[in-house]
């Protein structure tokens, strides 16, 4: 058994930021199924939001309002307020740590426009902002290597808990295949999103719902899973991301007729409307036959920006276009389509990253010693739709807060008792089941069908009929999964085994997303029902909480915290 004061699962921005908060006083383990600097935070391109006011006036209040409105009034405003207030400080802290940022001529952090933000407040490092912050935090991790032990390429199987208090995790060293229990006084999940359940996604292969499903299996509900963000500029067919910064810098969207179709959908903000609106606009154009040559993509036009600006501000995007589709955006138009990008929902936490089990009688019951931050968590600051550049900020702000909350908790907490062999046996049985099933089903086909099902039936536009079909198809895939055929039964770096376990997690997640989408009979933010095209505040101005109830899913509600801004109609 391995013992640490605190175990952080996931080493993206949130996980590393949490580790830095704890490492001065505690023995910290940070565990990742990839090497920390390969975490998916690094793929974020466009920026990180903060009302620094380096490019004209700005205020945290405006940032807050934009975030509330962008989230279609489903975000909890107490959390959003703290979050927007904290933004400038955390950016300055990153800068002091050594994080690089593009600069204004006066040497300040440069800021640019982004969808849904009324002011240019995206701080950025060219078009590799996530990469820049990820590496800056990784540098700090290396600097503090005496008190932070990195478990690189370790896979987390399950959360150990008695239902009310968390005691550790069961993990495997991918390299050796050795399974271990990690006993900890506190556990922080920063395990990211689950875009990989969809066929067209910007997400890394690693974004597979391991964290959220481990929480779910331990009795933690998942909040607002129906809210999945489709990013408007995914590379056609591949889903690879072309940053919204491309539009922030002046890029336009054209349909098959060569028309800037955003005029129809968001005449004021045009291409810089929030992502849910732009993605729906693209999907409508495509569905109505106005894609390019009638196909399922539209064009992103950057040609008028000029080579110099593209090379200064968007060099990576240019290279991606050249490498992946042979299109140089300096001269030609990029083919794009909506791509599953971000999960607004996740493990419910309070404003300090403390995981909350339920809210009976208006009182929150925490799972003691268990914290979550970043994309895997739902605070909720993004509500029904996240604004671009708000996710990096969320990871840093709530990574820090979860770290601090854990620090506070560790002042009094000790190790909870665990039954090591029982916890390990549960997971070993799962592995054994996979090895022994020796069935005839191809895991690859199951995975492919799941992804296609989710993109076509639970994508940008949804309706009751499709969602029911989706749920039934996913359940069918879940049973086929149990009859899968494995080829590699070795212990050494068995990536096939982990892919299978990831698929198991994703199949559960797909069911949860679709089931929660089915019950939300309204359209709000990233969740758009053609059969209920309007937002319905009377019946649905609340968060969804999906609980595990045996093999069934049980959905409960939690009210939205509204402080400053009462819901009004959302137009751009």
């Amino acid at each position, binding site marked *: 058994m391995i013992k640490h004061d605190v175990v952080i699962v996931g080493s993206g921005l949130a996980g590393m930021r949490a580790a830095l908060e704890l490492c001065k006083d505690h023995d910290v383990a940070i565990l990742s199924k*990839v*090497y920390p*600097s*390969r*975490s*998916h935070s*690094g*793929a974020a391109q466009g920026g990180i939001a903060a009302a*620094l006011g380096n490019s004209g006036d700005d205020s945290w209040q405006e940032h807050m309002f934009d975030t509330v409105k962008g989230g279609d009034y489903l975000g909890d405003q107490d959390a959003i307020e703290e979050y927007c207030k904290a933004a400038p400080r955390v*950016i*300055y802290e990153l*800068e*002091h*740590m*050594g994080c*690089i*940022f*593009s*600069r*204004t*001529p006066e*040497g*300040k*952090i440069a800021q640019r426009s982004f969808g849904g933000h009324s002011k240019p407040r995206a701080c950025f*490092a*060219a078009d*590799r902002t996530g*990469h*820049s912050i990820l*590496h800056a935090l990784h*540098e*700090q991790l*290396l*600097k503090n*290597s005496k008190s932070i032990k990195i478990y690189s390429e370790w896979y987390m199987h399950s959360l150990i808990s008695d239902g009310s208090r968390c005691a550790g995790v069961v993990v495997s060293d991918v*390299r050796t295949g050795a399974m271990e229990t990690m006993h900890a006084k506190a556990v922080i999940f920063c395990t990211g999103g689950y875009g990989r359940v969809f066929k067209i996604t*910007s997400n*890394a*292969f*690693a974004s597979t719902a391991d964290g959220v499903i481990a929480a779910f299996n331990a009795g933690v509900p998942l909040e607002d899973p129906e809210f999945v963000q489709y990013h408007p500029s995914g590379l056609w067919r591949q889903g*690879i991301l072309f940053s919204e910064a491309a539009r922030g810098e002046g890029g336009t969207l054209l349909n098959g007729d060569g028309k800037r179709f955003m005029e129809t959908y968001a005449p004021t903000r045009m291409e810089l409307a929030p992502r849910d609106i732009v993605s729906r606009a693209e999907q409508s154009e495509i569905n109505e036959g106005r894609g390019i040559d009638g196909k399922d993509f539209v064009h992103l036009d950057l040609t008028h920006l000029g080579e110099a600006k593209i090379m200064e501000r968007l*060099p*990576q995007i240019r*290279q*991606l276009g050249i*490498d*992946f589709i042979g299109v140089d955006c300096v001269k030609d138009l990029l083919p794009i389509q909506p791509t599953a990008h971000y999960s607004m929902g996740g493990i419910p936490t309070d404003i300090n990253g403390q995981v909350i089990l339920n809210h009976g009688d208006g009182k929150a019951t925490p799972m003691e010693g268990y914290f979550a931050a970043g994309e895997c968590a739902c605070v909720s600051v993004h509500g029904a739709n996240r604004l671009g550049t708000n996710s990096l900020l969320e990871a840093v702000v709530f990574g820090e807060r979860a770290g601090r909350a854990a620090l506070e908790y560790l002042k009094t907490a000790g190790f909870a008792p665990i039954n090591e062999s029982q916890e390990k046996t549960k997971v070993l049985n799962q592995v054994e089941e996979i090895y022994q099933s020796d069935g005839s089903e*191809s*895991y*690859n086909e199951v995975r492919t069908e799941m992804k296609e099902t989710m993109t076509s039936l639970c994508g940008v536009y949804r309706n009751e009929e499709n969602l029911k079909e989706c749920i039934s198809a996913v359940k069918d895939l879940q049973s086929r999964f149990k009859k899968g055929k*494995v*080829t*590699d039964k*070795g*212990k*050494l*770096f*068995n*990536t*096939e085994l982990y892919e299978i376990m990831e698929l198991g997690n994703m199949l559960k997640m797909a069911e949860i997303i679709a089931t929660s989408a089915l019950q939300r009979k309204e359209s709000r933010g990233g969740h758009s029902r053609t059969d209920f095209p309007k937002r319905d505040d009377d019946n649905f101005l609340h968060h969804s909480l999906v609980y595990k109830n045996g093999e069934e899913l049980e959905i409960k509600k939690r009210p939205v915290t509204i402080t400053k801004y009462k819901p009004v109609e959302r137009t751009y």
Partner: protein
Amino acid sequence: MSVIKIKRFNPEKRKDSYFQEFNVDLKPGTTLLDALNEIKWEQDGSLTYRMSCRSAICGSCGVKANGHATLACQKQAENLLDKNDVITVEPLGNMPVIKDLVTDFKQFWEKVDQVKPFLKNEQAPPEKERNQSPEQFKLIDDSSTCIMCGACYSDCNVLEVDDKFLGPAALAKAQRFVGDSRDEDTLERVKELSEPGGIWDCTHCGECVERCPKPAQPFYRIKEIMTVALEKGVHNNNGARHALSFTKSIKNSGLLNENTLPVESMGFTNIKGLLELVPVGLRMLLKGKVPPIIHKPCDELNDVKRIFKELDQ
């Protein structure tokens, strides 16, 4: 059908490595990573490699394709086909192989650690950001694009023969801080980087520039560190002495003086180093293979001297 020929290694099953061929129908738009995935998911689930973002930013999927390191996700497979319609895929070089295309990055990361890869600045930070001009930012723009994929490390010609060399990735990371206007430790850094195994052990082969999937291009970053080291007066090593002697020679004659360069590079007080020059010097002398004793300058030397003067050297 094209053939992907993959170097397999699984010590759980077999001691040695071997090549295995897979037939794949490469549709346009298929990256090398897509092709590997197709093999893993449809033909042999035991094929093992790393991957994650599949958009050339996480640095996981470095492999050798046709003998040269690359990111599998960044290359269109059809562009890698040789004339027999084959792509040969092997694990990265200069690292031990764990299984198939997965290599052990332990030493790679240890070397990154050695260059103290974090900003050093003991001053109390200002209330807001530290100022840095766009020009200052530009000095670290390229090195900060490194994704630590190990492609440069894999193909580095020096590492092939000397594993004490810090290698291109760690040195590019070092430049990220040597060049950072906010870092206070420049002199200490360039001193350490001028030690054996550091910048002056780079052999200029340019492999790292060629393999780097990003603008980081370590060789150019190494040269930037050299410039700073020379500027800061870190001259007490053969590399620096060599550069200074070279420059002096061109300044005085427009051309390289091959007689003085080796001696000045070793340093006049470096008896051991000077003695090392004796065998090759003697061999060349005996064959009459020596530069003229009186070094002849180029014509129009004054113009060269004028340029030196105008550019303040």
